[in-house]
């Protein structure tokens, strides 16, 4: 039976497109409810990684418990569950949504609804969430709240008459939002006396307490001493501590139906705590696990190598540490003739990949060489064997391949109508199959395409942005595998194949990509002491050739008394630049060379 207690709980998250002000709104709600004093209040409390703050995106989920005394005189507990705002993290988002009864949908009053907002709105509707629209940035001169309200009604089909008009930046309308939460978001209705049923929607590693599971209790209660069972992982642990976020950890006697908080149980292995898994009481288990659990599988792969081979162990340690907080990160050792020992790493998407690379370099002070991203190809060999390949070097010989399949995604692109032509061009170029086009209103359309994932991982976002002056937004989900005519394109430097530069490409695009790649490499590889021929080849057939001329001059004409310090600095910089290069055969390759394939354009 739902208790009175739960009447005063609201569990919600905020759905928004990047830059529409989700974090700023969260800050204001935290500030207004006085959880943190002004002194404690750091800009955008929830995005607590430097990287997140710089990029203005949320990578790791955070949640915070707020207390609010409403106009009706009652004290409410708000659990604000933060969600990552990017397409790569759709599954994580869906699990956070499943922990809520409602969601605030933030829409920028100057820009309207974007593809990501819509994608997450659909996810929220799938999870039966009550949606509460908030129109943000009404202080901007170009704001058009009435128009955006209408868009919310037309596009999402949501009643926008109760929408709050706010400026999170200026602190306008925040109280209305808080009251709106009380009024429009339903209270949880769990059964406190039923067997424990709690959803894990995030986890992280604490060096003192082990893996911390962040949970929403649906039914029953959990407290220290409870023998909990993770139903999918099939493991059991004794609960050591439970608590809530203030946003720091605050231990409590127990968590009950409707509550959001954390559980610590001296869990050493992050792999035991799956996002989406159900926790129950081993001594009094619930009958059925919560629906929606999915094993996370990486979509995009790349090779990560230490620039200095001696850093191999450090790289492994760093990856292991990152994995403690990021179960979606996969890695296994691999070897490249060009790059030596490294790891093949799997990511949820391109952003996830970039974030991990940046964190490795920044937080662990590693110089990395990363290879171009790849997807998983299915290969059916002539002997009937089926294999999966994520590293182009592992592709079997041409004559052993019966056929190949590549992953296809369902892509949704939203854009002002004037860019439909360029977008269709781009999708056509990227081997897209047009599905349909819907007018959201007179000036905006939603395009649906099936696109090969391997076309998206090569600068598709950038190309889309530049063709639409940044107005289009984009979202995708995996559709499945389809047969495709693919070939491996090799790059030869000084007549030797550099395995780390090979990539898999559709055979119709091999020539143009090979040519572009050779030209690009000519630009990014600095002149060296000898001439370097660059060749692109499919099998034994050379399809493009360029030459890097030998370096002819690298001198300081003058070096007198006053010059030495300055010149030394110059030379040190030059040396530092060289250190970041990778020696392949006798050629020194800068890191960009390995990512060149990403910047090939169309």
């Amino acid at each position, binding site marked *: 039976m739902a208790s009175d207690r739960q009447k005063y709980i609201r569990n919600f998250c905020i759905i928004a497109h990047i830059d529409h002000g989700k974090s700023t709104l969260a800050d204001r709600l935290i500030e207004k409810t006085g959880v943190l004093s002004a002194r404690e209040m750091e800009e955008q409390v929830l995005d607590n990684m430097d990287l997140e703050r710089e990029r203005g995106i949320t990578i790791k989920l955070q949640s915070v418990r707020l207390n609010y005394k409403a106009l009706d005189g009652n004290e409410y507990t708000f659990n604000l569950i933060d969600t990552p705002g990017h397409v790569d993290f759709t599954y994580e988002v869906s699990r956070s949504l499943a922990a809520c009864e409602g969601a605030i949908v933030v829409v920028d009053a100057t820009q309207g609804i974007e593809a990501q907002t819509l994608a997450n709105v659909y996810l929220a509707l799938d999870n039966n969430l009550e949606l509460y629209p908030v129109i943000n940035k009404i202080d901007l001169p170009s704001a058009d709240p009435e128009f955006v309200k209408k868009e919310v009604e037309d596009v999402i089909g949501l009643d926008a008459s109760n929408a709050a008009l706010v400026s999170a930046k200026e602190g306008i309308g925040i109280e209305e939002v808080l009251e709106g939460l009380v009024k429009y978001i339903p209270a949880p209705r769990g059964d406190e006396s039923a067997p424990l049923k709690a959803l894990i929607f995030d986890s992280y590693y604490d060096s003192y307490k082990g893996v911390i599971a962040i949970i929403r209790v649906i039914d029953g209660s959990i407290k220290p001493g409870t023998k909990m069972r993770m139903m999918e992982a099939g493991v059991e642990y004794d609960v050591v501590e439970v608590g809530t976020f203030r946003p720091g950890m605050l231990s409590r006697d127990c968590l009950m139906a409707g509550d959001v908080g954390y559980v610590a149980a001296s869990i050493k292995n992050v792999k035991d705590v799956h996002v989406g898994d159900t926790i129950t009481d081993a001594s009094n288990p619930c009958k059925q696990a919560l629906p929606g659990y999915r094993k996370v599988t990486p979509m995009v792969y790349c090779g990560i190598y230490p620039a200095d081979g001696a850093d191999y162990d450090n790289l492994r340690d760093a990856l292991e540490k990152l994995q403690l907080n990021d179960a979606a990160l996969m890695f296994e050792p691999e070897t490249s003739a060009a790059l030596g020992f490294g790891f093949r790493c799997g990511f949820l998407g391109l952003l996830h990949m970039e974030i991990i690379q940046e964190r490795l370099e920044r937080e662990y002070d590693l110089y990395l060489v990363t290879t171009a991203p790849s997807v998983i190809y299915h290969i059916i060999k002539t002997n009937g064997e089926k294999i999966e390949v994520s590293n182009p070097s592992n592709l079997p010989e041409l004559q052993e391949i019966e056929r190949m399949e590549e992953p296809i995604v369902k892509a949704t692109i939203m854009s002002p109508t004037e860019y439909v032509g360029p977008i269709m061009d781009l999708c056509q170029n990227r081997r897209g199959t047009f599905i349909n086009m819907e007018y959201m209103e007179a000036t905006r359309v939603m395009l649906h395409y099936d696109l090969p994932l391997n076309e998206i991982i090569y600068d598709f976002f950038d190309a889309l942005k530049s063709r639409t002056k940044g107005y289009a937004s984009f979202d995708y989900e995996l559709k499945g595998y389809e047969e495709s005519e693919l070939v491996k394109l090799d790059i030869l430097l000084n007549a030797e194949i550099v395995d780390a530069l090979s990539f898999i490409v559709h055979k119709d695009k091999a020539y143009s990509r090979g040519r572009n790649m050779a030209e690009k490499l000519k630009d990014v590889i600095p002149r060296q002491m000898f001439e370097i021929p660059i060749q692109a080849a499919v099998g034994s057939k050379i399809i493009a050739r360029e030459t890097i001329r030998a370096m002819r*001059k690298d*001198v*300081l004409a003058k*070096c007198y008394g*006053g010059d030495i310090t300055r010149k030394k600095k110059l030379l040190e910089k030059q040396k530092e630049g*060289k250190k970041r290069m990778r020696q392949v055969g006798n050629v020194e390759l800068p890191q960009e060379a390995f990512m060149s394939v990403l910047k090939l354009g169309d």
Partner: protein
Amino acid sequence: MKEIGLYIHIPFCKQKCNYCDFNSYVCNDDKVQSYMDALLKEIKMYIQEYGFIFKTVFIGGGTPTFIHYKHIEDIMMEIKPYIAEAAEVSMECNPGTVNEESLGAYRKMGINRLSIGLQAWQQPLQKQLGRIHDTEQFIQNLEQARKVGFTNINADLMFALPNQSLEMWLETVQKVASLGVEHISCYSLKIEEGTPFYKLYQQNKLQPIEDELDREMYHKAIELLKKHGLEQYEISNFAVPGLECKHNLIYWENKEYLGVGAGSHSKIAGVRYGNHRMLERYIEHVDKGNYPIDEKNVIGHEEDMWETIILSLRLNKGLDVLDFNNKYGVCFESKYSLPMEKLLKGGLVEISDNHVRLTSLGSDLSNSVFIEFL
């Protein structure tokens, strides 16, 4: 008493050249006077406290001859008692800023070597560089200098200039060498940040010449100068044997020198000092009776070794390995076996009679060589 080289900086010019990133200013007479007063005071402070003996003197700029010669005379009078016998006393000058009278005065006050900035023979190139003189003036000043008794004269030349052809460059070298100067410096133009050239370059209005042409100019000049009896002894410097610039050799042999004036650097007892660059700041410090030092860096053992290596490799005589090992108490051969192996294999350096030298290729790619020792 310590024997060192003395560098005196005169940071004034009639106008700043388009490629120049040196510490020089276009100023009025009052400013010149107060700077020269400070300069004299700084020199006195060093002499009184340390009692150096100057085995070489180099008055550089700027354009030392742009200000009246009486200012230089004041300085020379002050330092004369501390200049070693038969010391080389050089001064930079630009054509058109000297005449027979001033040259006579300079010679008389003890200056015995002139370095004249010609840069290019052809008028359009001089104009492009923002030079204020023409070739006629250079020839005339050279004759005047000979007349008053200068027997050791250098000409500064530049190559790899935008719009300069190989023929123009070789004409420059040919003509100047034929005039019988004892020393020539040939500098490959580097477009430095903060110069008018840099701005033009960024706006795509100035096309740097190809590296291939730059090197052709360089190597052809080496040959041509040799024919005129001017032997290369440093990457950019050529002289009649025996008349190499002794002051500059102090830098390349990593010996000690005192630099006075705004922005000058000193290296004394393993420490490098840099004076304040801004005139006002410099004058202010000296006026208060303080040394006008802005930066001070103790040169570590490793750092000093590196400096010795790269500076001596600039010289054609190369790095004397035995000297090096004695000076630093190390074994060069084993300490630098890895870079040496790589450089020898690449044909960038060569070893003979215990000296390491850059090859011709090595001098074209000298930075790549130097960083191997870092």
